[in-house]
């Protein structure tokens, strides 16, 4: 179902038209910049290797596969370093790792299942139950809100409700599993979910009451 061709947005974006072939000193500068890229990446990989492998192993379930994924990550960031100037090697490394770990788990059908088969009984049923003449909230959402607005709404959630929501909905974890990971009780996870749902609704569904915007995340930290 999923082909083993994990994509990386970052690499695809730069594609083939990477500025090549300028003569003289600018080519030297290019080469120097690349050297610097590679060195920065090497240092970054060295620093984070064991942490990364440990993290991937937790996601994919075993050490051997984790090493394979990590290897793939390194290959891709090196390739990227050859065509683009990297401002933040760690960010590139982590983005690529997150992306490839997701691809690996998607390939195994372990996460993001609803993308292929929307048969979550409750949800499917409730949507089907809605009167047909009234545009379903989903349609309304689809028309008014783009992907960007949805991402903004998720990003605007406070840290813990966001983590709980994302893990529950997209990492396909049960509240019990999330509770263990976040080191809180299941009922707390449920509270985080409620909080997330309410905030998402007020941003995405109730535009008329949008004057009461959620506080910026920064000021909420530490509370």
């Amino acid at each position: 179902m999923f082909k083993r061709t994990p994509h990386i947005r970052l690499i695809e974006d730069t594609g083939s038209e990477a500025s090549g072939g300028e003569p003289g000193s600018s080519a030297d500068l290019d080469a120097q910049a690349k050297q610097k890229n590679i060195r920065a990446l090497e240092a970054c990989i060295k620093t984070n290797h064991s942490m990364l492998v440990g993290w991937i192993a937790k996601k994919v379930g075993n050490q051997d596969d984790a090493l394979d994924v990590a290897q793939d990550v390194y290959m891709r960031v090196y390739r990227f370093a050859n065509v683009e100037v990297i401002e933040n090697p760690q960010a590139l490394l982590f983005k690529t790792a997150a992306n490839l770990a997701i691809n690996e788990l998607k390939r195994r059908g372990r996460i993001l299942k609803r993308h292929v088969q929307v048969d979550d009984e409750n949800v499917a049923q409730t949507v089907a139950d809605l009167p047909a003449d009234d545009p379903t909230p989903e349609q309304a959402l689809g028309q008014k809100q783009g992907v960007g607005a949805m991402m903004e709404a998720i990003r605007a959630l406070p840290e813990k409700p966001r983590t709980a929501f994302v893990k529950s909905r997209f990492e396909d974890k049960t509240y019990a599993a999330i509770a263990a990971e976040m080191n809180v009780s299941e009922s707390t996870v449920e509270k985080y979910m409620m909080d997330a749902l309410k905030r998402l609704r007020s941003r995405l569904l109730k535009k008329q009451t949008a004057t009461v915007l959620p506080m910026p995340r920064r000021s909420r930290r530490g509370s």
Partner: protein
Amino acid sequence: MLAMNSKQEQDDQAARWAARMLSGDNRTPANLDLDDWKSENPAEAKDLDELLAMTQSLDAVGEQALEEEWFHELETLAEEKKRQRWFAGISSVAAGFVVVAVMAASMLFGGPEAVTFETVKGQRSTIALEDGSVVQLNTDTKLVALFEDDQRHIVVERGEAFFDVKRDEDRPFTVAAGDTNVRVLGTKFNVRLGASSNVVSVLSGLVSVAQRTDDTPKREVALLHKGEQVIVGEEQANPVVGRFDEGSVLAWRTGKALYRAVPLSDVIKDLNRYFDAKLEIGDPSIEQLPVTATFNLNDQSVVIDALESAFSIMAVKKMDGVILLYARET
């Protein structure tokens, strides 16, 4: 006012039902309960449906949201690791000893972290620094590392250390040992801080050695290449660069001391760096005895045995712990 309150209430109920239904395990509330509630509260039921539908449409950004969440997880982990790294990078070579690493006060003020590494007598230790460089501490050595974005500083406060510096043109590596300052890019070299003179020996790469005296500011006194050594001290205005015996200078890195025709008095002085019980020569006639030998530094009694059997020496332990060496009567 009343309407708003009841609206609030109703929202909460819908969200509570939704949160329960999304738990991901099969313990969702009995459908009967849900159906009862729905038929009793049609308006709230619609809210619930809206919430669930919204949640479902959010699946469209699932992958992106998950990627951001995982990225965030990794950054948090890296941040934690960074704080622990100074400690984690320490691996003690000598068994039974623990390296003392102390965060200096500067860390409390959010500046770059100055970290102190220390070995006690008889201990050796290898430390992986955050930039990928490796430093090896000989016995009774103390050094402070301060890494900034554009500079890497090490101060050797006591003892002897071997550096294998990771090359980084944008971040020069400097080692200060007393009044001697060593500046490198990427190279391997040994620095020994002595009472009256400091010794810098280069195994590979290029090393610039500068010296400061009471009356002169810091100035370069030598540019060392592979295999070269300089001894800088107070008395020498223009220190001489010479070759050095790699085996004897760096034997300590493998836990050994190597001497080639070195007077016994100097050998004793050198060996005393490693052991608590001090060796002394009790017999002036053997002070100049040339010693050519390799000692294993892990055990002082083995060293003394070797001296006794190979050089016709007799060791006597005094009440205060000092070990006196005499020529054995034949």
